[in-house]
């Protein structure tokens, strides 16, 4: 089975049939999603256990966090998730230009998230609050820093996908990589949706 010829791809080779039981984006990326959620889940468990042991220090530490900034970051990631979901809808409908606009906007939200994260850290450093300040801030930097690295990787992944959409490499008949990258992007959302209330709100 081949796709219809296009100007940039006169003949598109047949794609392997995806197994019907596979999750969206493929089994490998979901294996990674579950692994990361278990890892962060363990981190949340440690954070909560330590919070019970050092209640006063954790309450004090939480009050020093910039909640409005974290709220803005949550809005950014959720908007990025919305954009990525719409990018895939557009791509499946063979609307490459709208797909490119949506995915580029998702990338922008990810970059904005990282900028706000740098601002948040800079604020702490200016007040002399570093990684080894106390248990609360060690866990805060570890969890949010590890998450930020994931967001950076997601931004890079989506950038490659954007170039692929722009060049015509990805289109309605071949967008599996874009779907997989989207799953990784949404994974960053999932982690943050738990991280934000646990670290900043509770």
């Amino acid at each position, binding site marked *: 089975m081949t796709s219809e010829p296009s100007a940039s791809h006169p003949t598109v080779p047949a794609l392997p049939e995806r197994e019907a*039981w*596979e*999750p*969206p*984006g493929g089994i490998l990326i*979901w294996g990674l*999603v*579950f692994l990361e*959620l*278990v890892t962060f*889940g363990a981190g*949340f*468990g440690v954070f*909560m*256990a330590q*919070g*019970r042991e050092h209640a006063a220090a954790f309450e004090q530490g939480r009050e020093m966090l910039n*909640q409005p900034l974290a*709220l803005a970051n*949550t*809005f950014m990631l*959720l*908007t990025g*998730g*919305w954009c*990525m*979901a*719409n990018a*895939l*809808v*557009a791509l499946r409908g063979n609307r490459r230009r709208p797909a490119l606009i949506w995915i580029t906007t998702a990338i922008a939200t990810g970059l904005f998230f990282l900028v706000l994260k740098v601002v948040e850290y800079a604020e702490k450093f200016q007040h002399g609050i570093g990684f080894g300040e106390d248990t609360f801030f060690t866990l805060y930097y570890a969890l949010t820093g590890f998450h930020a690295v994931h967001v950076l990787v997601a931004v890079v992944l989506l950038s490659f996908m954007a170039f692929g959409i722009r060049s015509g490499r990805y289109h309605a008949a071949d967008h599996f990589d874009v*779907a997989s990258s*989207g*799953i990784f992007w*949404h994974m960053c*959302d*999932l982690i943050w*949706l*738990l991280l*934000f*209330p*646990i670290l*900043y*709100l*509770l």
Partner: protein
Amino acid sequence: MKANTVVWIVLMMLTYAGFALSHVNGAGKATAFILAAAGLKFALVGWQFMDLRKSLMLWSAALFGLLGVILGVVAFF
């Protein structure tokens, strides 16, 4: 795309509600709402944005089961 937009609006509203509630007194009920809202948002992202609604229930069950375990651990402490 319409469904995505509706879900996005709900996610934003739940996020702001949790943020606002975290500043009111009565921490116990606020904590319950904040965790419940986080779980609901997690489920909505998985179901709608990650297209789990189009796949076998096995994957949704696995993801939401893991969510339940994580929230259970958090609520325990």
